[in-house]
């Protein structure tokens, strides 16, 4: 066997022979071949339900910025809805605070979004096409349209707050004329901004996000409602925050119901990451905070400090929901089990139901 001059300088084989794989897990009896007459497996016996336990799909290369954006987009969208309502109902303080919250949240969110791009300097490339099949493309247009309205409305508020000291010159009458329509436009795009991120997550091969597609939009709008209402309860005196309190309660009810329904309707294995580990903890805490904030709003919402504390709890609950859902999805993509088991189950179910012609694997 030795054919090389260098074989003489090779150290002697370790006892047990070379190439025995790592860890030295005892081999299963009955495989035979220990005498070297046949080829031996190098790696320990493994369950071949996956390829060395490696993931099948790749997780989105998204950092916590994207989770923050999910939250901030919700706060911005909900705040714009509140601002539009306050504008129509003549609640000046609520309108001002909600408008400022909307522009603040959407600005932070947009910065987070751009920062997470691989090539941030090319973020405008998203506005070179409009692609209905891409929720990210649709979302970037929603974000742009929303920001335009929210920006104008917030500029008018900023001008009033500073006692008309912004250097607007002849543009001031124009700003006054368009701030109403701009506020309503932001209010119209607000729900879309709050909900499109649910489609963005579900329209992927990431098992947990994809499996949640039916109910995730409802979870996200509820979470956006309670977060923006909570923020308004923090910033706005109780006399004007009545609609925010009602919206917060509706948001809490929707959030609890939609989350329950979502986890029950999902494939049980694909739902696991929502219950386990850090995402599970975050989502449980989120639920507790939502309930606490809701109860606080219901029982003590007319007392300023209770309202502020409840509002803060609701804002935190929404942030935890978004981070929890986000991280659960990333975790589900990293473990092949969450891809393979639900897929095998649905394939078997279709076959059992008599649909036998749509498998990717075929005998001919």
């Amino acid at each position: 066997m030795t054919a090389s001059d260098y074989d003489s300088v090779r150290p002697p084989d370790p006892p047990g022979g070379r190439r025995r794989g790592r860890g030295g897990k005892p081999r299963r009896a009955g495989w035979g071949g220990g005498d070297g007459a046949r080829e031996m497996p190098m790696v320990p016996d493994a369950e071949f339900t996956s390829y060395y336990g490696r993931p099948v799909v790749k997780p989105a290369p998204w950092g916590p910025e994207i989770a923050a954006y999910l939250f901030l987009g919700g706060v911005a969208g909900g705040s714009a809805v509140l601002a539009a309502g306050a504008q129509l109902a003549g609640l000046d303080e609520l309108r001002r605070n909600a408008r400022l919250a909307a522009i603040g949240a959407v600005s932070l969110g947009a910065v987070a979004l751009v920062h997470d791009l691989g090539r941030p300097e090319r973020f405008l490339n998203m506005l070179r096409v409009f692609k209905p099949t891409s929720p990210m493309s649709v979302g970037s247009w929603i974000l742009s349209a929303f920001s335009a309205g929210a920006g104008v409305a917030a500029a008018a508020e900023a001008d009033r707050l500073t006692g008309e000291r912004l250097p607007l010159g002849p543009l001031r009458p124009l700003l006054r004329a368009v701030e109403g329509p701009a506020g309503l436009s932001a209010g119209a795009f607000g729900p879309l901004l709050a909900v499109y991120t649910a489609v963005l997550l579900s329209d992927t091969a990431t098992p947990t996000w994809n499996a949640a597609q039916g109910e995730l939009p409802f979870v996200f709008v509820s979470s956006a409602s309670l977060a923006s209402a909570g923020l308004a309860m923090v910033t706005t005196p109780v006399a004007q925050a009545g609609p925010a309190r009602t919206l917060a309660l509706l948001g809490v009810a929707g959030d609890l119901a939609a989350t329950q329904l979502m986890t029950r309707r999902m494939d049980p294995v694909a739902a696991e990451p929502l219950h386990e580990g850090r995402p599970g903890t975050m989502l449980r805490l989120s639920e507790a905070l939502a309930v606490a904030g809701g109860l606080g709003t219901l029982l003590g919402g007319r007392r300023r400090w209770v309202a502020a504390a409840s509002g803060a709890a609701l804002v935190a609950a929404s942030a935890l929901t978004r981070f929890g859902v986000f991280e659960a999805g990333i975790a589900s993509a990293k473990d092949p089990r969450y891809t393979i088991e639900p897929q095998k189950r649905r394939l078997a179910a279709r076959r059992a139901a008599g649909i036998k012609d749509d498998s990717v694997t075929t005998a001919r």
Partner: protein
Amino acid sequence: MPQLAGPTDPAADARWPDVQARKGFFTDTSICIGCKACEVACKEWNGNPRDGNLELLGSSYDNTGALGASTWRHVAFIEQGRERIEEARASGRALVDLGMPSVGAPGQAGPAAPASGAAPADPAEGAPVEGGQHPDTPEFRWLMASDVCKHCTHAGCLDVCPTGALFRTEFGTVVVQADVCNGCGTCVAGCPFGVVERRTDGTAGPRHDRGKPGRSGHGERKGEQPEVPNLNVAQKCTLCYDRLLDDQVPACAQTCPTTSIKFGDHADMVDQARERVAELHAQGRTEARLYGANDLDGVGGTGSVFLLLDEPEAYGLPPDPRVATADLPRMYQRAGLAAAGMVAAAAIAFLGSRR
């Protein structure tokens, strides 16, 4: 709006004025020898940087790991003993028998298979088959398979790309334009096969030693590495679009010494795959099956067709891939309903608490 699911000619669906015949691979893993020449040829031709740190992964001879931004061909190595071979053979037979009333799901077919009896391919219980019946050794087999981008009829990556950086070529393949991509990463999550990836600096530690404290001694740069092109944008197999435009065969297929990787018109590839699997079945090798040759599947059929010798998940392939965009109309409906619900909630909030 393009067709979101079901059989179609992808180039025509993308409204190319001069549609070429759809091109694709047929990767016959039954004759792959695991030489990795395809991996090398691909890297050379496409100028892809090294990824990973030249570590041994402890997975047979596979130290590449998986497809990724800089690995557009990946050779899988799987070592199996007799039990596994029998299970693979049984699950393959269950596929063949699909449609016959007595056969259950392939997962349950393993233990039940020997009872189904009369087929001459069945090895006698507990005794190894001596020669003749099967061309492979019953105690052991080594599966090798060169994986590649599937160039799906309905490509999840392409559908969700917000910039138009990913596009459908006139050959029906899917290609990233690196100078348009802004690295948003949506395509990475959109691919049901885990193929496309955002390129990092190509090495696992040397340049910046990102994270991983306590691994400082790990992975010194082995040799000078050239500048990494197309950093932080999505990268994947282009089916050698540049070579196709010059009527050349993709680098991997050109270099494959055993013709395990075949390249040609997609229709011919599917025909060849069907002939080959029938041939193997006739030899009693019922473990052979096709992957991606059915245009009724969840991605409308794949441009890269494979002949596998075990369940797809054994190779790291999804057993029932489905392009997420196929369900997008329903997702938009649900989102619209949810948004309407939010407006309704706000209306109740303001009308209900009118002073």
